[in-house]
């Protein structure tokens, strides 16, 4: 029963990781842009959300409604102002540019919000739980998982079925050839990054609700997102979702073995996947 409980809690934790990983799946997995500031953007959005909630006395849902459009706008500006200048077949320039952005964002957040940990007041939602077959399941983690599943489903369909999705996949496969069919790659990339950071708006609200956030927390979220995408396999959205579950379950089981072992257990499973199946669980091997 204890291990079944760990499995359930792991899946719920995986729901949170999936929300970080989806944006990463889009930017790193599809567009091959390495965004080191990914985690810092989550934390920045969380802190903005907390400030909005305290200033205007808003509950979690109105904060979400304000934060997601703001996140979309931030993503669009990030691509237009920074990433479109460094995008190309070489991933190094985007890595360096966003590494710099990451440091700048962390210091900016430290300046504005200080190093204190904060959280978003959930008006009781964070402490409610349901009993399902002898296991207590938190209401908030359940909502997180449901939202993550919904976002994954939407993103997957968008990539497969829409004009924007096809244009993005085309531009990711061959930027120059995409332009030869009339695609403006920079406009498509700006929309894609807007979507990726927009999803982080959801992650930011839920992260601040279920735990605390501080300006230095970003890099840890970045690592989880990277690991989930690589476990699942580059370029597949549902792969990133499953990768998040694998990571969450590994950590939850690790925590049961020893509270100090949880995060490490996740990293070990990640390394095991990388060593045995470098293309990821759902990735296609390079021929």
């Amino acid at each position: 029963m204890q291990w079944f409980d760990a499995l359930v809690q792991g899946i719920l934790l995986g729901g949170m990781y999936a929300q970080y990983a989806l944006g990463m799946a889009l930017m790193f997995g599809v567009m091959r842009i390495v965004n080191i500031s990914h985690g810092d953007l989550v934390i920045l959005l969380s802190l903005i959300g907390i400030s909005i909630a305290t200033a205007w006395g808003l509950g979690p849902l109105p904060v979400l409604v304000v934060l997601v459009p703001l996140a979309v706008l931030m993503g669009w500006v990030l691509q237009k102002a920074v990433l479109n200048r460094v995008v190309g077949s070489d991933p190094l320039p985007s890595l360096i540019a966003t590494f710099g952005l990451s440091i700048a964002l962390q210091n900016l957040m430290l300046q504005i919000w200080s190093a204190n940990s904060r959280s978003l007041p959930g008006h009781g939602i964070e402490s409610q739980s349901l009993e399902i077959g002898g296991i207590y399941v938190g209401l908030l983690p359940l909502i997180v998982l449901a939202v993550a599943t919904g976002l994954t489903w939407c993103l997957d369909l968008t990539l497969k079925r829409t004009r924007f999705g096809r244009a993005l996949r085309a531009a990711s496969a061959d930027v120059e050839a995409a332009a030869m069919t009339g695609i403006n790659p920079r406009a498509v990339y700006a929309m894609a990054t807007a979507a990726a950071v927009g999803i982080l708006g959801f992650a930011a609200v839920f992260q601040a609700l279920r735990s605390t956030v501080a300006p230095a927390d970003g890099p840890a979220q970045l690592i989880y997102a990277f690991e989930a995408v690589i476990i699942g396999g580059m370029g597949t959205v549902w792969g990133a979702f499953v990768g998040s579950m694998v990571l969450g379950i590994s950590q939850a089981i690790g925590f049961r073995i020893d509270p100090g072992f949880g995060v490490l257990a996740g990293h070990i499973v990640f390394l095991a996947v990388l060593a045995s199946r470098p293309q990821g669980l759902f990735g296609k091997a390079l021929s």
Partner: protein
Amino acid sequence: MTAVLSTHGLVARYGDFQALYGVDIELHQGEAVALIGANGAGKSTLLRSIMGLLPVGREMVLLHGEPVGGTATDRMVQKGVAIVPEGRRLFTGMSVEDNLRVAIDQAARMGAKGGWTLPRLHRLFPILKEKARAPVQSLSGGQQQMVAIGRALLCQPRVLLCDEISLGLAPKVIREIYAALPEIRATGTAMIVVEQDVGLARSASDRLYCMLEGRVTLTGRSAEITREQIGKAYFGAGHAVV
């Protein structure tokens, strides 16, 4: 009669290396022009310069008399110029149909009008219908070339640039692909065809340009130019005719 597309003293370089030295070519309505020349003569560079893939001066390329040199590639497509690039450059990881849909999507977005539809393309190359759901990289070279041509046609071009569409293909497949060109021309689309095979180039074109080391060395009607003239223009003066 003004040309649909023309270049005027077109100069292009890759960094310090100058690839084109003042190239003048003209393409008229409904015309097919062949571009021949040895490897490195500048044929592909010329097409890439027209397509906005290399920085060139504004006045060096005219489209319907309008200076368009150096215009972004996607804007050139919008203006009615499409290219079948060297090496095909298909979107790997996507199905045949999705590769074609990308062009249909963009043509719809830009409001481009023309006669090319998916059913019509399927009549021209029936194999593309049969393989619609197959990943594009699983197709044979000839079939991939048909996808590349189809993708360019679905951009609804008034000018079509074809860069070495016979490269690496079996003679039977080459005949099949060249057999489709008259139907493409019948829609009023003017074409520039870059071709290594001189015989093929002559039979598929009204006029031809021969290039050597970044310059046009010969031009004239394909049916009237002699093998001796081509030999001299192709290899430079003093070479024996092969």
